[in-house]
């Protein structure tokens, strides 16, 4: 059984300009002990997906549909239309947040409360979730700080956040996240604000600590290097939808979606020759207020066909773990060989109509 199961989750935001569809029909599962990477550019919905899971969205958010199961329990944030349902949901989430599910945020400089000692902040979670005395919580906090590699924790416990450097603060945040032995840790760009050498330290730390505790990690990032180093499985998000999902090796060595291929083409790989130019994706990500019809990636896609602009692509599976949402991949091999670029799809037309009918 999966530890976390998200089915058909959509999240919208109501703004003065209209409805922003930040997340559309996103589904994935995370099992115990695995590191699952959510990769996407800014505005792709990677953070919103996890904030929806935690119930930490802003007031103007609406979740029209979606089901979230954590450890077999239903924690769906959808259809909370009465006050009673909302209160019940909030009560449920309060028990989970910082307890069974914890979160590591991006910016270590703003996450910690500057007027509280770090010891107090680590103990806060322990006291809220575990029945124990202050003294016991303090002993646990010292143990945690030693675990995350902070020297002389007995002394550091009574210091304030400003007395710690960026990397050390991120260690404190990891300590608070681990405090109640969570089953699931959500890491939202945990190393983006850090320098390369410190980033390597923190990634190593996250790896060893989760290997020890057997917790699952959801790693949100835009850095493909971090993903390749740390993750077992990856989902690629674009404009609020999952484009492709698979094992790390499947995504990096046999990408199926044109967007994934484009992402891998626009980074410099150490294996690549310098004289070889980068292959960027033309254009810019779409405005979430005015999403194009059909596939959201269509306007930038090099392999777009006419149907891509008309209908959302269906799911096509390549293995038990590898799936992708693209019309190119949904059609027969025979069809792909005769397929032509968007300008010249006449030959494809009857078949397209056929596959569209099947979908409908």
């Amino acid at each position, binding site marked *: 059984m999966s530890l976390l199961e998200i089915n058909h989750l959509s999240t919208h935001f109501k703004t003065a300009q209209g409805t922003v569809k930040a997340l559309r029909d996103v589904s994935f599962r995370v099992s115990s002990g695995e590191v699952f990477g959510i990769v996407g550019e800014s505005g792709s919905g990677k953070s919103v997906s996890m904030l929806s899971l935690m119930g930490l969205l802003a007031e103007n958010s609406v979740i029209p549909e979606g089901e979230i199961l954590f450890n077999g329990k239903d924690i769906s944030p959808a259809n909370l239309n009465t006050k009673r349902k909302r209160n019940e949901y909030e009560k449920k989430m309060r028990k989970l947040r910082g307890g069974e599910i914890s979160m590591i945020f991006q910016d270590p400089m703003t996450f910690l409360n500057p007027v509280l000692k770090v010891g107090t902040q680590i103990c806060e979670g322990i006291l809220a979730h575990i029945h124990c005395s202050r003294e016991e919580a303090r002993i646990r906090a010292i143990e945690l700080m030693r675990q995350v590699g902070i020297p002389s924790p007995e002394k550091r416990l009574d210091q304030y956040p400003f007395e710690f450097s960026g990397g050390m603060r991120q260690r404190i945040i990891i300590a608070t996240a681990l405090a109640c032995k969570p089953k699931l840790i959500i890491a939202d760009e945990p190393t983006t604000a850090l320098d390369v050498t410190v980033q*390597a330290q923190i990634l190593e730390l996250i790896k060893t600590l989760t290997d020890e505790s057997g917790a699952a990690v959801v790693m949100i990032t835009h850095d493909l290097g971090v993903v390749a180093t740390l993750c077992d499985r990856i989902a690629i998000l674009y404009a609020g939808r999952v484009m492709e999902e698979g094992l790390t090796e499947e995504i990096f060595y046999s990408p199926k979606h044109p967007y994934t291929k484009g992402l891998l083409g*626009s980074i410099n790989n150490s294996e690549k020759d*310098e004289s070889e130019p980068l292959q*960027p*994706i033309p254009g810019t990500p779409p405005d979430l207020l005015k999403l194009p019809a059909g596939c959201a990636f269509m306007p930038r896609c090099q392999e777009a066909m006419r149907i891509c602009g008309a209908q959302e692509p269906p799911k096509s599976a390549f293995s038990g773990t590898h799936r992708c949402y693209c019309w190119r991949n949904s059609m027969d091999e025979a069809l792909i060989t005769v397929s032509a670029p968007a300008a010249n799809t006449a030959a494809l037309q009857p078949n397209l109509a056929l596959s569209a009918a099947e979908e409908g």
Partner: protein
Amino acid sequence: MAEKLLEVTDLCKYFEVKRGLKSSQAVKAVDHVSFEIAKGETLGLVGESGCGKSSLGRTLLRIYEPTAGEILYDGKDVAKLSRRGFLPYRRRIQMIFQDPYASLNPRLTVGEIIGEGMQIHKICTKGQATRRVQELLELVGLKPDHIRRYPHEFSGGQRQRICIARTLSLDPEFIVCDEPISALDVSIQAQVINLLESIQKERGISYLFIAHDLGMVKHISHRIGVMYLGHMVEIGPSNDVYHDPLHPYTRALLSAEPIPDPRAAHAKKRILLGGEIPSPINPPKGCPFVTRCPYAMEVCAAIAPPSFEIENRRVSCFLYEQWRIRERGGRSIDSIPVNAPVSQSANA
């Protein structure tokens, strides 16, 4: 090597920091840095935050006044010129900033932003300016009718293109690119890099490319300089530095870089550095890297290493003194036992 455009010798930039009422201390942001850039060449500059790479870029343009040292630009020491005397060089040396959201005036149209420099330097009349701006917009991949729009109507990548058009308006010979792609999404970064490369091919412009993304720096640069705590610790051709780093810091920095290739990432041997960069207000005595260096020796804690020439590279590390290399029978330092870093002045 091609003709030298820029030659920097012992450049220093110290910032005064007030401590209390009277006493003040100096932050040595750039400390005795020397390098040169040839015409049409790109020098990549890497290092972690606070290592002085941006300060160095700004000092070259005299946005910051240099504390000491020489900046020979086309054979003339521009560090000693008066503000007015430097003005003609302002046209020839340009800069692209990191944050395309902060570096464009939101109250001016794109045409005014790009045309402003040309009017200040009296390059062309107002009528000609419009045509030139339109040409520039096309060159950087925007549409000529964008000229009347305001910056807020553009995305991050497009704004960075506007910034590039603005620097090109003055036909510069040398551009300092201060992390021009850090604020952009992955798929957009490659677009901007390709644009910068094609402009260089066409016009033979030299770049100083500052970044912390090693992969991109290696891609665009001919040579790479590595900075640590205000010092240039290693400089050399980008392939050599990338594939065979000499300085222990360069080795650690490269090994810490996450590579976007799962098999290579798992096969990679990491050198994990302990600790973090010391404060530049109170840098370690001797070599700046001594507190974190796995190869630190007694001499490192006592005196700062001079730079040693190794083949076509320069490296500031005592491990590469001639007699030491002879003693080991080669310049590889892999055979040297790694000791615990000297924890000198860590708490001082």
